[in-house]
Each structure stands twice: as structure tokens, then as C-alpha cells.
């Protein structure tokens, strides 16, 4: 986090207040988060079948990961998913948020409608519905049929199944949209008035004023959506019936982790998977924070 000149004189002048404000979080951190995390790290070094006591095996789980073909497949699927779904979702969210921030009539109606798919979450209903759209005789193929295109069975075909998950993710862009909207509401209006006087166009205003001012929110959404994408579980579970098919084409990382941990009852192995993911996400986040110095502008 960036420092300000004011804080130079004295080191850590708010120790008491800082820890007082932080106290609830710190208590929760130790009680409900850190202990389970440390225990899970321990489990990653054991063989643990959930029913009998864990047996220490050192780094064997970690070594085994790299010769597990299904694991490597889950890594590939997840990387494709993260790299495509995050930018798509954020672009859709930002575009719609900016469009909705322009004093159109019936704004509330639009905002609510765009958010609706995100309200659905990922239930059995979503799974049923998604198949009605992407199956061979589904809505998408009926629509393509108008143009004489014979579509595939999108969910059933291993070449396309992952893209229906990317579509599902992009379709549920409500959360980042909401955060962008809230961020836009915080922007000082006088800058826009100045820009209007200077005769700047809409596109120029967006890139010169809106985007830089909104950069803390862009940064937040980028970091969080990346973390979420790496951990995407429920949609993958719901859409493929929990199996990651067809032929592992939608076997996202945490889905495989879940199948190993709770299905095959290899919780030690699953914990090792979790900690590798932890390291990868940590790396991504560190890179984001490092790059943030160059493009994120804070008002403080």
C-alpha cells in the first residue's frame, strides 16, 4: 500500500487504535480460519481417508500430483477457464455498469434485469435450464437453425463443453457490475463537468477520467474474479453432474479436488492440491499487486 508524506514523521502512530479496530477480525482469523488452514497444511503431508487417523507421508502427495494425468488435465482446463472467463466477465460488467450510469430512463429495471442471472446462483434449476439451452435441440441451436447452421451438442461435446461454463460465468456478471456501479457513484462529478467544457468526447472521457478514477475497483474486481475463477466449483459441479465430463473436459481444479477428497476419500491428496492452488493464486495476486503501482490510482 502506498504511503503518504504525512506519515513519515512517526513510525506506526496508530498502533493501539489499529489493533483495536482489527481485533474482531484477528479473533476470527485465529479461531475459524488459521487453525483449519494449518491443519489442512498438515493433512497435505499425510494419507488421510476421512475415517481413520491420518498417516504422515511427507511430500509424497505433492510428488504424486505431477504424474497424475487427471490432475494435469484439471490444471489445463482451469487455466483456460481463468484466462477467458475473467476478462469476458469483467468487460461485460464494466460495459454495462458504465452504460447504466448514464441517467437513462427505466434504469432500475435494466439494472435489476442484468443482475437477475446472478441471483440464480448455481442450483439444480440452473443445470436443467442450461441443458435446455445448449443441448442438441436446445435454444441456441434453434436460433442458429434460422441461419441454416447445424449446431453441435454443446455440453456433450468435449471440444465445446468448457465454453458453456465460460458463457455461464460471463452471463452471471452481476457481482462485478454492482461493484463497478458503486465505484462509479463515488467519482467526483466536477471532473466530468470540466471535461465537458473542454469538449472531450465520450470515449476520451471514459479512458482519461472514468477508467483511471475507477482503477481501484477494476483492481479489486480483477483480483477477486481471478481468485474466484481459480476456485470455481459449483457451476462445474452442477453443469456436469459433478463428474467434470465429457471426458474430463470440464474437470475444473476444485471439482477434482472435491472428487478426490470426498468421493475417493483421499483427503491428504486433496489437501496437497489445495495448497498448490493456494501458491498459484498467491503468485497471481502478488503479480497483480506489484503491477498495481503502475496503474491503480487511489484518492488518498
Amino acid at each position, binding site marked *: 500500500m502506498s504511503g503518504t508524506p504525512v506519515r513519515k514523521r512517526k513510525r506506526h502512530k496508530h498502533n493501539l487504535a489499529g489493533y483495536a*479496530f*482489527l481485533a474482531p477480525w484477528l479473533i476470527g482469523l485465529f*479461531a475459524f*480460519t488459521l487453525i483449519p488452514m494449518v491443519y489442512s497444511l498438515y493433512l497435505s503431508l499425510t494419507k488421510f481417508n476421512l475415517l481413520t487417523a491420518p498417516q504422515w507421508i511427507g511430500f509424497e502427495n505433492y510428488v504424486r500430483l505431477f504424474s497424475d494425468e487427471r490432475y494435469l488435465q484439471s490444471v489445463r482446463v482451469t487455466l483456460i477457464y481463468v484466462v477467458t472467463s475473467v476478462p469476458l466477465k469483467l468487460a461485460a460488467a464494466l460495459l454495462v455498469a458504465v452504460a447504466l450510469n448514464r441517467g437513462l430512463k427505466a434504469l432500475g429495471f435494466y439494472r435489476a434485469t442484468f443482475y437477475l*442471472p446472478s441471483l*440464480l446462483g448455481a442450483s439444480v434449476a440452473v443445470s436443467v435450464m442450461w441443458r435446455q439451452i445448449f443441448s442438441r435441440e436446445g435454444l441456441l441451436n434453434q436460433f442458429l437453425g434460422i441461419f441454416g447452421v447445424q449446431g453441435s451438442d454443446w455440453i456433450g461435446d468435449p471440444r465445446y463443453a468448457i465454453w458453456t461454463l465460460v458463457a455461464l460465468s460471463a452471463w452471471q456478471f452481476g457481482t462485478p457490475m*454492482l461493484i463497478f456501479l458503486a465505484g462509479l*457513484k463515488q467519482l467526483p462529478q466536477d471532473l466530468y463537468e470540466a471535461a465537458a467544457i473542454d469538449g472531450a468526447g465520450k470515449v476520451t472521457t471514459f479512458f482519461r477520467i472514468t477508467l483511471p478514477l475507477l482503477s481501484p475497483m477494476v483492481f479489486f474486481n480483477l483480483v477477486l474474479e481471478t481468485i474466484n475463477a481459480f476456485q470455481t466449483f459449483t457451476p462445474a459441479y452442477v453443469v456436469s453432474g459433478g463428474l467434470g465430463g465429457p471426458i474430463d473436459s470440464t474437470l475444473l481444479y476444485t471439482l477434482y479436488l472435491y472428487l478426490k477428497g470426498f468421493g475417493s476419500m483421499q483427503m491428504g491428496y486433496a489437501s496437497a492440491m489445495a495448497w498448490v492452488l493456494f501458491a498459484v493464486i498467491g503468485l497471481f495476486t502478488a503479480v497483480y499487486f506489484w503491477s498495481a503501482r503502475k496503474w491503480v490510482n487511489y484518492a488518498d
Partner: protein
Amino acid sequence: MRTKGNHWRAHALLLLVLVAMIYPMVWLVGASFKPENQIFTTMNPLPLVFTFANYVNGWTATGTSFTVYLSNSLTVSIATVIANVASCSVAAYAFARLDFAFRKFWFAVMLGTMMLPFQATLIPQYAIFYQLNWINTFLPLVVPYLLAYDAFFIFLMVQFIRGIPRELDEAAALDGAGHVRVFFSIVLPLMRPALITTTILTFIWTFNDFLRQLVYLSDHARYTAPLGLNAFVDRASGSSYGGMLAMSVVTLVPTVAVFLAAQRRIVDGVATTGIK
């Protein structure tokens, strides 16, 4: 910015995207009014034969009234929202505005708590709540949020607070205001959009959460709506899809209502805060 221009093009574009967005919802609502033997066999989104039977039967199909599930979901969600907004805003203020030892370290730890998939900590967490004798109560679902469990919202609020110019609290500090007063009378009102966003997201996520609620709740008198929905469909012993779809629509109502009520306030908030 709020010039009344000719926005028909914007409207047309939005409407087009909109149709694609809501078609699946139309299908869902339409299907909930279809007789069960036509839900999967007709592609038409609207019912050819209209029936309320799915709603009537679905409401009590699991042996416990859906009213119970909904009120449990509301209790858990509302308690979680209050706990989450209060605890996260306090922690966020510390991270964004206060200068204390190891701040960067704790900030990194906070981010780190989001990076381990929850499936990995489910079992040790269960063991802790079992030791506390909290199983089959709402406590494991709510108490962690009272202690700022979800770093997502701390980080969100930190980003917001850092968008508020520091001169405002510095001016207040010069007038002799302590941190508590600066927090309550300056920062909190100015971060209203963030608080409302947190309210909406926390409510919806809690309302739709499945796995954690499944693990911690066992008694049907304490079941929440997602658990109730799960009891409709069983691959082995006969399912009630009509009832499940109908109750899915019912379950959407509170979240839609909360969204509609709260989202207006994000917008209204602006005019009154008037930064600078």
C-alpha cells in the same frame, strides 16, 4: 453527465442484450407452471397447459412447509448481513486509514485467507464447531461473519475507503475527532455505496449457499431454502421436478426483493454524499 439526450440507440442495444440475459429466467418461470410431463418434452418456454399444481404441491412436498425453510434462510441471511457489514467495515477502516505495526503483513494474511479452497478446510472447521457444540444451529453460519470472516468484503471496503480523500478525516482530526468519530461520522457515511453493495452480495450469497448449510444443519426445522430444494430431487428414488422448479422461483423472490430495494440506494446515495 445526466444530459437528457436521444438515448434510443443505447436503449435498443441494452434491450437486445437483455433478451439474451433473461431468456433462461423466462424458461424457468414458464416451466414452473407446466405439468410435470411437459417440462422436459416441450422446448417452448411458455406453458401450453397452465397449472399451479407445482406450487401447491411443492410447498409441502418435503414433509416440512417451505415457509419454514424460507424463514430460516431469512434469519440466517439477515443476521449474516448485519454481522458482516459491521465487522468488515471496522477492519477495513483499520487497513485503509490506520498506520500500525505489521499492517502490510496482516493485509497479506487477510488476502491469503481467500486463496485456499473452502473444501480443504471444511473438515477441520466442522471439528471446531463440533467442539463448541454448535452443530445443527445457525451459529457456525453466522458467528464467523461477526468476526469479519469473509476477506472479500474487507478488501472491497478498503478499496472504497481509499477512494475517499484523506483531507476529510484529517480536517475532522484537527477538530479533535478521534478514530471512532472519524469512522462513524465521516468514513461510514461516505462509503454507503460499498455498504449497500456488501448488504446485497452478502444476502444473496448466504441465501443461495448450499454446501456449508448442508454440512452444519441436520434438522428439517432448521433447514434453509437451498437444502429444501435439494430434498426434491433424488436420482435414485423419484424426483419432483415441477415442485423443485416452482420452489426455485419462490426462493428467488426474497433475493430479487432485497436487490430491488437496496440497489436504488446505491444510486440515491450519490446525490446526498456529494464529495468535494
